[in-house]
């Protein structure tokens, strides 16, 4: 899709500006080759990841462990990303090695144990300040306490943190304990047990506790490049972050959740922003 900025690092980070303060710049995703596997022996799943507004069609790489192309302007972002794999027994590893190509990043994940694995590309807090310049145009600068023009107004000191995640199950799925950090999916329905026309019950957690209705959640079916109507479905959460979702079609979906937290002052930051970009696979009835 169309992009208005070349500053990918800037654009890749949340742009909480403009009409809504919940605005994010470009979507990110990790797409697993398989989400449901059956085998008595070790299985591999190949992951692709990208920063792209065309859902599941890649545009820019997301992650590089010095195996791929020169990351260029994305290098500062890749340097702070951490890819965390949680295995069914709750063990956390960072064994995934991303190889960046010009349009996407690729990695293998090895599944040895029965149960559910969580893959998450985690971006810790990145500091950013947004402000209005003398022409009333929104601007932003990265880093802590950047030098701003003397006539800057509407100054907001922010941090953005994100998780780009998916779940994969080998044999019998299992329930993973929440990490307790940022936005996460929980609830009665297992994310690897989604079927068309079956209602799924989910709950969003924030820092390990039920999130609330002030969490923006949208679901987008993959393949936006090949349809005219983007069809982003806004999902309303209840006060405990619960929601029901009944997918109408099979395929891969991207669930995007965002939350802003105002920080009690005095503090170094005014607003903290969190996002979760979760890939879900839905099978036909």
């Amino acid at each position, binding site marked *: *899709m*169309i*992009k208005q900025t*070349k500053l990918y690092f800037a654009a890749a980070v949340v742009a909480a500006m*403009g009409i809504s303060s919940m605005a994010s*710049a470009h979507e990110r995703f990790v797409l697993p080759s398989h989400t449901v596997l059956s085998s008595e022996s070790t299985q591999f799943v190949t992951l692709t990841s990208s920063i792209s*507004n065309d859902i599941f069609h890649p545009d820019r790489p997301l992650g590089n462990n010095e195996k791929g192309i020169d990351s260029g302007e994305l290098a500062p972002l890749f340097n702070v990303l951490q890819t965390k794999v949680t295995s069914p027994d709750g063990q956390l590893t960072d064994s995934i090695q991303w190889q960046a190509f010009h349009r996407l990043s690729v990695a293998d994940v090895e599944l040895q144990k029965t149960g559910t694995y969580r893959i998450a590309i985690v971006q810790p807090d990145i500091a950013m300040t947004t402000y209005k310049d003398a022409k009333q145009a929104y601007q932003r600068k990265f880093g802590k306490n950047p030098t701003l023009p003397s006539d800057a107004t509407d100054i907001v000191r922010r941090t953005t943190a994100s998780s780009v995640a998916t779940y994969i199950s080998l044999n019998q799925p299992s329930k993973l304990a929440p990490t307790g950090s940022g936005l996460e999916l929980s609830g009665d329905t297992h994310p690897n047990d989604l079927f068309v026309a079956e209602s799924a019950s989910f709950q969003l957690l924030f820092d390990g506790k039920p999130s609330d209705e002030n969490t923006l959640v949208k679901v987008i079916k993959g393949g936006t490049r090949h349809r*005219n*109507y*983007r069809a982003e479905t806004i999902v309303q959460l209840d006060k405990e972050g619960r929601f029901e979702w009944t997918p109408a079609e099979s395929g891969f979906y991207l669930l995007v959740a965002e939350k802003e937290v105002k920080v009690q002052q005095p503090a170094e930051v005014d607003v903290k922003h969190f996002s979760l970009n979760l890939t879900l696979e839905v099978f036909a009835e």
Partner: protein
Amino acid sequence: MKKILFIALTVLPAMLWLKPVDATEVVIDINVPEIDSSPYHRPYIAVWLETPKRKGVHTFAFWKEQEEWFKDLRQWWRKIGRANTPNFDSVSGPTRKPGEYQLTWDGTLSNGQKVSPGEYVLHFESVREQGSREYLRQPITIAENKTQTFTLQGKQELGLISISVK
């Protein structure tokens, strides 16, 4: 001159027979709709004329930002844009905010010649980053004594479009 022509065409239709062949006037009012979206990016929009056999004739408007995304105006880019991009300086400009815009065309092609009378199709295409895409068409006739008006209603990325052909 334009004003006189306008009077000649609207107030004194009986005098239309005096109109020279080359006095084509196409007026397009186009609405760029307000869209409640977060984030909102202004749409890339192209308005152009083709023959019924899909040969590009003339681009009236091409509102864009960066070259890398011209291709996302999929119809325009393939049918006329990629072959003639340098010729659009007079009609191209930055993306527009939601609102009403008027395009007028006197039938002059980018090579300076007047369009030949005949059957044509107007094309409207709009595409928005992290938004949807819309594509509308309207067949028109360019000929003497053939005044036509049309309205098209977009559903996503285009609003009401009013077309007047004289």
